[in-house]
């Protein structure tokens, strides 16, 4: 990993905002897709793919590579934008998102997209293959690490906790989970006139009870995130979960903390305003 200078963090932040802009452009172009979740995950995805993961975009199937699973598969457009930025496929291909015959499916397909390590999209399923990859690394004496990003909404699925139990029982310290704790889901526990209930309460206590090392961080603070991943790497005997407090729709004021932007398509005017806020208007100009 490169040194974590202020300049480096600013560079990663700029990449994250480009990813955000490309998410919005792609969804606008496709006329469908999710935006709130991709925006909450963008900072961490940029940090993972440009700073943390030991990967080679020229060899997406390299056996020794670190693995990443996006369990909250509906946020996949953020992962596609990150992979494109990283050079796994041409940036222009993002405009084929959700189109017929596209390699960029509405939910991740490991058989189609270079750089996708596991198909996902039916929620709650991503941590288990991560456990399998971590067990395989141990069995085959391979040094790679496995990262799984889960959502707080999908933490309502029982399988997440089946996987949590088994990962701790096997002491998988080569496995790191990242909870994108943005506090919203598609609809959730609505209470008219009141703030709705978060998808899951007190995740730190729950994961600790399951035997995991837990680290709470601000998921939009790239420096803090990278240092927490380092701490996870240095933790022995237990898996680690980073409980990353995030804001759904982060970076675009009118989308932030609004569950209605879980999946919604920005209008031409909304897209223009969003890109201006992200400092990425030139990406829109480049399309014209």
């Amino acid at each position, binding site marked *: 990993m490169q040194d974590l200078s202020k300049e480096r963090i600013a560079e990663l932040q700029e990449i994250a905002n480009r990813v955000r802009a490309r998410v919005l452009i792609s969804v606008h172009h496709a006329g469908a897709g999710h935006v709130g979740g991709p925006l909450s995950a963008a900072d961490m995805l940029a940090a993972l793919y440009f700073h943390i993961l030991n990967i080679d975009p020229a060899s997406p199937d390299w*056996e020794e590579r670190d*693995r990443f699973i996006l369990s909250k598969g509906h946020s996949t457009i953020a992962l596609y934008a990150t992979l494109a930025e990283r050079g796994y496929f041409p940036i222009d291909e993002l405009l084929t998102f959700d189109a017929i015959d596209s390699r960029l499916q509405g939910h991740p*397909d*490991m*058989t189609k997209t270079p750089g996708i*390590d*596991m*198909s*996902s*999209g*039916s929620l709650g*399923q*991503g*941590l*288990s*293959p*991560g*456990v*399998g*990859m*971590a*067990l*395989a*690394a141990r*069995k*085959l004496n*391979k040094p790679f690490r*496995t990262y799984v990003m889960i959502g707080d909404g999908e933490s309502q699925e*029982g*399988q997440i906790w*089946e*996987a949590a*139990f*088994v990962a701790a*029982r096997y002491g998988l310290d080569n496995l790191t989970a990242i909870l994108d704790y943005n506090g919203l889901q598609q609809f959730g526990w609505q209470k008219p006139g009141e703030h709705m209930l978060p998808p899951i309460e007190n995740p730190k206590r729950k994961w600790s009870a399951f035997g995991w090392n837990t680290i709470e961080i601000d998921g939009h603070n790239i420096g803090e995130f990278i240092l927490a991943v380092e701490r996870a790497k240095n933790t022995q005997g237990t898996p680690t979960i980073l409980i990353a407090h995030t804001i759904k729709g982060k970076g675009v004021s009118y989308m932030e903390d609004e569950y209605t932007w879980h999946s919604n398509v920005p209008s031409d005017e909304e897209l223009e305003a969003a890109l201006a806020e992200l400092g990425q208007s030139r990406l829109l100009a480049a399309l014209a």
Partner: protein
Amino acid sequence: MADKKAQRVAFGETLVELIDKNPNVVVLDGDLANSTKADYVASQRPENFFEMGIAEQNMMGVAAGMATAGLVPFISTFAAFAAKRDLDQVRIVVAQPGLHVIITGAYSGIKTGKTGKTHQSVQDITIFRAMPNMTVVVPADAVEVRKAMHALVDEIDGPAYLRLTRDPVETIFDAAYEFKIGKAVTLREGQDIALIGTGEQSIRCLKAADLLAEQGYSALVLHMPTIKPFDEQAVIAAARLTGRVVTAEDHTLIGGLGGAVAEVLGENHPVPMKRVGLQDVFGESAPNDDLMEKYALNPHHIAEAARKLLDSRK
């Protein structure tokens, strides 16, 4: 027919044999190893045994992750749970990605050791054959179980479902038997009617053929150890030759072997047909013999179905 041996015993023995041949073969157990006989691996090759507890959804996902990293995982649980408890996981992380995970469903059918409707599995063939990319194998005896397991490790690189039974069963194949994925096996030649079976029911088809021979009829017996890919040509040839077909399976009549045969013949060579199997009902807990008689799965039931077709064509 030679001595009896349980399919699950062959399963446990063959797992150890496969691990010795390929150290990347591993077994994931859903807390049933001493029933399924995956415990042979736990005691003899513990490095290749992964207890996953009573949590089938996670087990399926773990196997998928292992397969992406170069291991060859066998899932070991009861057929009832393999086909239902983790079915969405099969769909999302095993079948669609086409990963080489071998799902073994022990204690299939209704002969599950007095456990009844929860543990009997009579829809698993239908479920797994409807899943794209899936190979579905249903062996008749212990010899075929062993041969099939080798083939599923060596000859394919995608997902498979292997349907196994609990109790000792006659051995009909000898050590020289060659199992080929997707190939039907003619167990007996005949001209008057074709009895098409899968799994242990193929052995009962042989016994039904004996009953029919006593009555003066010559029955062809065709064994379908692979339900997917399905040997359509063998089924069409048997129908052409005999003009009448009875199917036999320890499984629901909806979408299983009988369904597969009807699909093929309906489009290619329609002939009068009867299906012997579970009549869209749940089972119950009882001794095997009582179950087989009540749910009409015995050789004489197969022979009676054949007689109805033979008599109507006289």
